[in-house]
């Protein structure tokens, strides 16, 4: 630490003298955002096209040796059963991305309306719905997921639904908070004054405004759901059929496989990391792009 200058005064002076560049930066999504979106688009495309891509099927064994390192014929090497890790990572993307996507759509579909209703009507309805949200949040999320998945079955539908239930409370609370803010605004009061019905106000006036912050949270939520699938896999309760990123990382994470075939765990970890990073970054950018308070600040 140098004693000569204490930096923040300087920063503040710059802001005072020339406030435009900073604001201009904030109003752009930036290159990073488009790189993130590009990566997500690429992964999604590969996942959708997996059946027609020139890659091994997810359970084709003997494609190479066991635990072979990365090479030209097997970009990410092979796993303990001699399956091509690159091919399985793409197949795994199908399950992991679907789980993340379905979970968040379900969470928004249930949490969004509940949050808007709760924030619009307030009073007793609000008290009840908020209590449901608090209870859901107090529950250790993985324990709840384990309970449900264990007692139903380990299909893609159930796992996605369970993660969707976990998404209800955070999304609902955000929707509620935003609804409360917007419900006080002039355009909503104007709608009320000209006699619009409650349903119309909620759908036509509040929903479009609440959707934007929800969208930013949804991007983060997809990332959380993808990670949660991995957590379930480590506890032995992820989607039963086919490869998922979580199951692949688990398969490569015992001490012996780590020592002799590090790539088996590290390849899916890398892809999952980049995907989560991209989702986090894109969500963060969208939020600061649309967040009026933050730009005003």
């Amino acid at each position, binding site marked *: 630490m140098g*004693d000569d200058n204490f930096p923040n005064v300087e920063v503040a002076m710059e802001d005072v003298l020339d406030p435009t560049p900073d604001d201009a930066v904030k109003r752009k999504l930036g290159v990073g955002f488009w790189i993130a979106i590009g990566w997500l688009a690429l992964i999604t495309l590969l996942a959708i096209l997996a059946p027609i891509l020139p890659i091994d099927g997810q359970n084709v064994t003997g494609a190479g040796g066991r635990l072979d390192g990365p090479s030209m014929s097997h970009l990410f090497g092979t796993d303990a059963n001699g399956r091509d890790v690159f091919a399985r990572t793409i197949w795994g993307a199908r399950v992991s991305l679907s789980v993340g996507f379905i979970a968040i759509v379900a969470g928004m579909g249930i949490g969004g309306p509940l949050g808007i209703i709760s924030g619009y009507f307030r009073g007793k309805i609000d008290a009840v719905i908020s209590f449901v949200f608090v*209870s859901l949040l107090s529950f250790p999320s993985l324990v709840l997921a384990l309970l449900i998945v264990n*007692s139903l079955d380990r299909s893609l539908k159930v796992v996605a639904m369970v993660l969707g239930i976990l998404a209800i409370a955070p999304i609902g609370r955000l929707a509620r908070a935003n609804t409360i803010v917007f419900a006080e605004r002039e355009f909503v009061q104007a709608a009320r004054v000209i006699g619009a019905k409650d349903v119309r106000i909620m759908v036509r006036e509040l929903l479009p405004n609440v959707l934007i912050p929800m969208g930013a949270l949804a991007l983060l939520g997809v990332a959380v759901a993808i990670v949660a699938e991995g957590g379930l896999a480590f506890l032995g309760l992820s989607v039963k059929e086919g490869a998922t990123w979580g199951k692949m990382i688990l398969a490569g*994470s015992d*001490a012996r496989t780590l020592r002799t075939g590090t790539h088996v765990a590290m390849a899916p970890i890398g892809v999952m*990391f980049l995907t989560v990073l991209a989702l*986090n970054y894109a969500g963060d950018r969208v939020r600061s792009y649309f967040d009026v308070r933050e730009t005003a600040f």
Partner: protein
Amino acid sequence: MRYILQRIGQLVMVLFAVTVITFASVNVLGDPLTNILGPLASIDCADVNAGLKPDSSTRGGTSEGDCAVVERTRAEFNLDSALPVRYARWVGDISTGDFGTSFQNQLPVSTVIKNKLPVTLRLVGVGLFFSIVLSIPWALLSAYRANRPFDNVSTVVSFGLLAIPNFAMGVILLYFFAVRWQFFPTRYDPDGIYNQLKSLFLPGLTLALPLAATYQRLLRTDLITTLQEDFVHMARAKGMPPRSIMTRHALRPSMFSVLTVFGINTGALLGGTLVIERIFSIPGVGTEIVTAIVRDDTPVVLGIVVIIVTGFVLINLLVDLLYSVLDPRVRRG
């Protein structure tokens, strides 16, 4: 005072809701009798009594018939009553410290928890320690030179840390420090406090890194705001060295938002160690509840859920109260 009562009321309500949900889901979705007795549970007593089916339990030295076993078990675990009645009884038992008996090994659940909880608490303790020790100096350094190279790099680093799932972080740390360089054991070693702490180093770090990143982000933002305040300029003007300004003047008033999040995260940690305990083979409540869920060991699941959720709400209550002690405005809000 009214505020505290309100909060405690809310706490009890949340506990009630969570236990009802758990109780209902474990009892409705799986048949407890089958989980205790296995195939014996589905025996048709009318057939046995009529002598149509052989009575198998008389072998192995017990003179008790199959049906008697079923009856006794039903009575022992209160399985005959309606669900709400059983819930009420269960709550009554718990309030006297009786968590019931494990279906699997007939041990009292309180003994199971007594054995496993300290390990998890130690793990959480190590994790919290690392998260604080890492995040505070990190935030001080990056806020001191905000938007300079060190701060920019640390923004990237913390973004990266938050994007690594905890199990992936666990696997990466396990690979480098336990498998490759073998500084730490790959499995939990319960022999003596030194070995225990050594085995908890990596899992604790796994817990701590994303937390440290979160706290660093929050604390940095608040520190930057505090550093604009007059009393900081005053301290600077009188020639106080920057190190003392940062640690003595700026740090304390910048702690509020970090404290709130710290509370929420700490409560959530109790239920968040499941995966990490699994990766590092730590015999704590996380491992225990996963096994119990898979084996439908209802009393153990319920007991651990109660402990985890109570811990969560209590810590949040504590932080709320602490918050109102630190900032009197909250009390009236």
